[in-house]
C-alpha cells in the first residue's frame, strides 16, 4: 500500500470543485502535514468533460495528483456505476485514507464502495486527527447531535465523509499544481438499474445553497405567516446569507422543504446562524447546533434556542429585525 490520501472531489455544473470538496482537500493537507502522504484528488467524469479548471483548483488546494476516472457512463451520477468505478480504482491503487465531502451523492454511493472494498466508513465527521497508533481518530455527532462519538476503523482504506463547513478551507497556493492521470473504468450500461428521468432545481428563493452558505438566517412560526418572510429574506440579503426555516413553517406550507433545517431537513454548520422566531426544539438543533456562532431573537426568554445561542435578544422579531437589517446595510455601506 502506498501512503496516499484520496479525496473524492465533486464538481459543480461549471466544472469547478465544490467548496465541500476543497474543505476535504484542506483537511487532507492537515493530515499530510502530520503524517506525510501523497494527496490525490479523484474525479469521476464523462469522457469529454473538460477538467482543466478543476485540475488547477484542486492543485492549488493541495492535490499533487488528479486521478480522473473518465467514461461516457459517468457523465451523470449513477449509483452502481460510480460505485464500481471508485471501488475498482481503490482496489488497484490501495490508498490508506479516502476522504470526501458529506453530500447527498457521497452518502448515496460511498457506503456501497466501502462494502465492496471491505473497508470501514465513518460518515459526516466534524473532526479528524491521527491517534497514537497512527490510526485516524474520527469525531462525529450521534444521538440526535446530543453526543459525540470518536471512532476508528482497523480496515484499509479508512473512509470518512466530512460535514460541510466543519473543516476550514485552506488558503489556495497559486503556485501549486497537480499532475493529471486519466483512467477508463470498466463499465457497461447494463450495470445500472436506476435511471434519472427528471431533475428539478431547488426552490430556495435566494438561490444560495443552505449547506454551503457561510451565513444562514432562518425563520420559524414566530414570523406568524408566509407574508412576513420578506423580513427574513431582507436580513439574509443584507448579510449575504441563505434562508432556512423550521419544520413548523415548512409543514404549514409557508416555505419549501428544501429550506428546512433539522433532523428531518438539512444539517448546516455555517460561521453564523441567525434564528428568528424559532423555539429551538431539539430536532431543530440537530440541524444547526454545530454552527460557529448562533444568534437568536425570540420573545420568550425561556425558549430552548437561548441555551445554545452565543448572543440572544429577548424581543419581538417585528421590531428587532427591521432595525438589525438597517444597521447591517449601513455597516456594509461604510465598508465600501
Amino acid at each position, binding site marked *: 500500500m502506498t501512503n496516499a490520501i484520496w479525496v473524492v472531489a465533486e464538481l459543480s455544473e461549471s466544472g469547478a470543485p465544490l467548496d465541500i470538496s476543497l474543505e476535504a482537500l484542506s483537511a487532507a493537507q492537515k493530515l499530510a502535514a502530520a503524517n506525510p502522504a501523497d494527496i490525490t484528488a479523484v474525479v469521476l467524469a464523462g469522457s469529454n468533460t473538460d477538467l482543466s479548471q478543476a485540475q488547477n483548483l484542486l492543485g492549488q488546494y493541495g492535490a499533487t495528483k488528479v486521478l480522473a476516472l473518465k467514461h461516457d457512463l459517468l457523465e451523470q451520477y449513477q449509483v452502481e456505476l460510480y460505485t464500481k468505478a471508485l471501488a475498482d480504482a481503490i482496489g488497484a491503487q490501495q490508498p490508506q485514507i479516502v476522504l470526501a465531502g458529506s453530500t447527498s451523492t457521497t452518502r448515496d*454511493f460511498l457506503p456501497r464502495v466501502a462494502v465492496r472494498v471491505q473497508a470501514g466508513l465513518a460518515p459526516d465527521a466534524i473532526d479528524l486527527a491521527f491517534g497514537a497508533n497512527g490510526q485516524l481518530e474520527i469525531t462525529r455527532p450521534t444521538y440526535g447531535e446530543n453526543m459525540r462519538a470518536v471512532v476508528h476503523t482497523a480496515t484499509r482504506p479508512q473512509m470518512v465523509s466530512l460535514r460541510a463547513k466543519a473543516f476550514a478551507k485552506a488558503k489556495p497556493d497559486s503556485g501549486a499544481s497537480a499532475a493529471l492521470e486519466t483512467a477508463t473504468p470498466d463499465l457497461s450500461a447494463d450495470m445500472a438499474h436506476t435511471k434519472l428521468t427528471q431533475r428539478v432545481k431547488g426552490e430556495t428563493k435566494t438561490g444560495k445553497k443552505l449547506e454551503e452558505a457561510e451565513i444562514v438566517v432562518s425563520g420559524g412560526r414566530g414570523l406568524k405567516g408566509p407574508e412576513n418572510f420578506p423580513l427574513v429574506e431582507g436580513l439574509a440579503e443584507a448579510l449575504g446569507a441563505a434562508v432556512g426555516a423550521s419544520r413548523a413553517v415548512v409543514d404549514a406550507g409557508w416555505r419549501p422543504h428544501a429550506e428546512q433545517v433539522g433532523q*428531518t431537513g438539512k444539517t448546516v454548520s455555517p460561521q453564523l446562524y441567525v434564528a428568528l422566531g424559532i423555539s429551538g426544539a431539539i430536532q431543530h438543533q440537530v440541524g444547526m447546533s454545530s454552527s460557529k456562532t448562533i444568534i437568536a431573537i425570540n420573545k420568550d426568554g425561556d425558549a430552548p434556542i437561548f441555551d445554545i445561542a452565543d448572543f440572544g435578544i429577548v424581543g419581538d422579531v417585528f421590531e428587532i429585525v427591521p432595525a438589525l437589517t438597517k444597521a447591517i446595510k449601513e455597516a456594509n455601506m461604510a465598508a465600501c
Partner: protein
Amino acid sequence: MNIVVCIKHVPDTAHLKYDAQDNLAQDNLEWVMNPFCEYAVETAIRMKEAHEGATLTAICMGGPQAKDILKRAIAMGCDDAVLLQDDAFNGADPWATAQTLAAGIRKHVPNFNVLLLGQFATDSMSGVTGPALAELLGVPSITFCKKAELKDATTLSVERETERGSEHYDMTLPGVVCVMKCDYEPRIPAIKGVMKANRTEIPTLDKAALGLSDEQIGAKGARVEVTKLYRRPKKEGGRKIDGSDAQAAVSQLMSFLREQKLV
C-alpha cells in the same frame, strides 16, 4: 409483490437522560421506532395499498423490547414481522447490521421486490445501513427518498431530495430505497390494527437460524469501532439581552458581530 421494511429501535433523542458524569443513562432511556423508519413504514403501506395482492413484512434487529416497534408496524398496516435477536448481535455497526439484515431477508423474504429503510437512524446518524445492505444483496439503491411509488411490478418511481433540488428516478426492481421525511405523515395505528398486532405472533431468528458466524456480526463484525462517546460540549458564555428597546439591543448585537468579525 413482496415489500419489506427494516425498522430500528432507538432511544428517543429528544428525551435523553444522563448520569452524573454526563454519560448516557443507558437504563433510563425511552425507546421508540426511529422517526425515519416511521416514514419508511408509511411509504411501504401506501405502496402495498396501491398494489393489490402485495404483502408487507417488517424486520428489526434488536433486543426483546424491539418487538414493541414491530407490533407498532403491524398495527400501522404491515402484514407480518420478524425479529432478528441474539446477544451476539450487540455492538453492531451499520456494516455488521447490514450483514445481519441481509441474512434475515434471504431467510425470511428471499423474493423481496422492494426493500425500504429509514434514511438515518437518529442514534447512529449514519445513513450507511441501507446502501450497504443493497450492495450485499446485489440490488440498486436510492437514498434521500421523499416519495416512492410502484409504476408496475418491476419499476419503482422515486423522488429524491438533494442539495440542488429534487431528482426523479426509475428503479428496476428488486431494489432498496432509504426514506427521508415525506410530504405526508406516518399514520397513527387504529384500534383494529393494535388488536391485530396483539394477535400476531412475531417469530425470532438468532445467529444460528441465520447461519451467521461471529466474525460477521455484532461488535466482532463491526468495522467502525467507537472508542469514546461523550455529551456535546455546552456553549460557554452565551449572552442574552433584553430587546424591549429594539435600537439599543441592535446596537449591542452589532458590536458583538463586529467583535466576532462577522460584519
